[in-house]
């Protein structure tokens, strides 16, 4: 991992990044189409050293928020700041480690050439650039493809290239949009490890993803947005140790016939598996004790939905309900 530690001896070091959206709205206007409100009154602060997730259904406004953060779009109202600076001046001074949802790079470029030129744009001195390019190629396991044109790379390898270029310089702000999209399980796990390694008290990381499990594993907090509005912010560190889940998947080895009597709302899923209600902790434990006392044997008890997933469903449902009545 040493290869991915700070290698840029840039004296003009970036200030620790704190990202702030303050009542930000963005409306797309067009001559020929009605205006589209992509983001509305969005307020969120991402603290230094924090890994923040951004979750939302398709069209919720995630990409617009990221474009606002990179200064590719101006807000219609409100303010976006990075370390108290407007986005574009910040980016032009310090750069941001950014992985786009789509790897939009010239398909005629080679993998190695792409990293070399982006290392130059990242401001790395040529001697350092070479070392860094090799380090990220090694870290992301794309060495065997270094001479290939991007158009010849698979989706997974393109995604790894996207991650590699985001890590070229030791940026203090990282924005990763759907980082595990197209990665196989092995590389998904390696990505998780990588994020944990590059985590630092000075680095702020924003991860936008549809993969709630991913966000729950990696992020300190997850902002759930729908219809351009921030619905809620879930503290995943607390959510992990939260109250009893609403429903569980209960798998039994012995005593399947006892389950409906003890869990009246149980739904049989087959092969000794049931979806059972959670309720309060005391009630759940009492029912489980009852089941065991009657000779039943449990092989697994897993929350049917993760804490984040449950919150996500609830937030989106509330948003849709509110949208339907407004």
């Amino acid at each position, binding site marked *: 991992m040493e290869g991915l530690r700070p290698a840029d001896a840039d004296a003009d070091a970036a200030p620790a990044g704190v990202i702030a959206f303050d009542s930000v709205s963005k409306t797309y206007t067009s001559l020929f189409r009605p205006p589209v409100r992509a983001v509305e009154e969005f307020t969120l602060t991402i603290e230094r050293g924090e890994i923040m997730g951004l979750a939302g259904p398709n069209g919720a406004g995630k990409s617009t928020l990221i474009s606002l953060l990179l*200064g590719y779009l101006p807000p219609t109202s409100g303010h976006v700041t990075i370390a108290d600076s407007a986005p574009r001046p910040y980016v*032009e001074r*310090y750069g941001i480690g950014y992985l786009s949802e789509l790897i939009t*790079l*010239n398909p005629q470029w080679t993998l190695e050439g792409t990293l070399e*030129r982006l290392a130059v*744009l*990242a*401001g790395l001195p040529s001697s350092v650039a070479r070392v860094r390019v090799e380090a990220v190629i090694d870290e992301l396991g794309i060495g065997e493809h270094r001479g290939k044109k991007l158009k010849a790379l698979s989706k997974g390898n393109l995604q790894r290239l996207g991650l590699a270029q985001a890590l070229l310089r030791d940026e203090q702000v990282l924005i990763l949009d759907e980082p595990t999209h197209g990665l196989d399980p092995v590389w998904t796990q390696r990505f998780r490890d990588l994020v944990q390694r590059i985590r630092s008290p000075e680095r702020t990381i924003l991860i936008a993803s549809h993969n709630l499990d991913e966000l729950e594993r990696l992020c300190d907090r997850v902002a759930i947005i729908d219809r351009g509005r921030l619905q809620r912010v879930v503290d995943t560190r607390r959510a992990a140790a939260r109250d009893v889940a609403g429903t569980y998947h209960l798998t039994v080895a012995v005593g399947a016939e006892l389950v409906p009597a003890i869990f009246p709302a149980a739904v049989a899923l087959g092969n000794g598996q049931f979806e059972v209600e959670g309720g309060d902790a005391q009630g759940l434990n009492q029912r489980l004790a009852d089941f065991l006392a009657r000779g039943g044997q449990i092989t697994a008890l897993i929350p049917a939905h993760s804490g984040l997933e449950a919150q996500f469903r609830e937030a989106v449902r509330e948003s849709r309900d509110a949208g339907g009545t407004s």
Partner: protein
Amino acid sequence: MSRARMWSYLSWQARDFVVERGAPLLIVATLMSFPIVMSLRQLGDAATPTQAATAARYGVLQLFAEFSLICVLIGINGVVSSDRVKGYYRFLFAKPVSIPRYYAQAYLVNGVGLMLTALGVLGAIYALGYPVFPARVLLMVGLVYLSLGGLGFFYSTLARFDWVLMGATWGLAQVLRAVYPAHESTAGRVLNVLLPPFHQLRDVGLQLARGEAAESRTLVWLLAWGLSGLVLGLLILRRRPLAT
């Protein structure tokens, strides 16, 4: 800080010019040179060396009067809009790079690339055995690039189909000049000043290529149009968001 990085990136932009625009330029240069080379060959032994040199010089100047226009169109087309349309900007400008500086340098690199292309065409004709090397045609290529190319750069910062807008501007100016001649009405005189003076480009370019004194007012007018386009384009890049 940023400037040092951008100069380091110059070689990559030069490589992009060769890869993306080299083949079209080579094809156009070959196709346009071919008839002239053939006609000079037909002239062959019938002409004295002096006559042959005069004919060759005339042919090369006529070639460049047309070639400079087309090669500038190829050289400037999509200089900004291509990155925007294809989304390449998303990765490029997440790096600590000034967007106007990046494209100003691309404009410079493409201009130098076109001059070198023109030099290559001249060299090829010379190498074929025609004893003329009118290096002043580079002035013509430079003039066309600075004037028409500046407008192309401006349009490229605004819209996807920059070359269509360039063609439309040129055509509209020609039509309006024909409908409202400058010497017949006040409207014509005003339009003549306001419209881009690209109808003068060929004549002024040929004057420069022949080593004649070009009319300075027209020359300044042409260059001012191009420079204004470039400066406006850079301002737009500074102010206008890249995403849409």
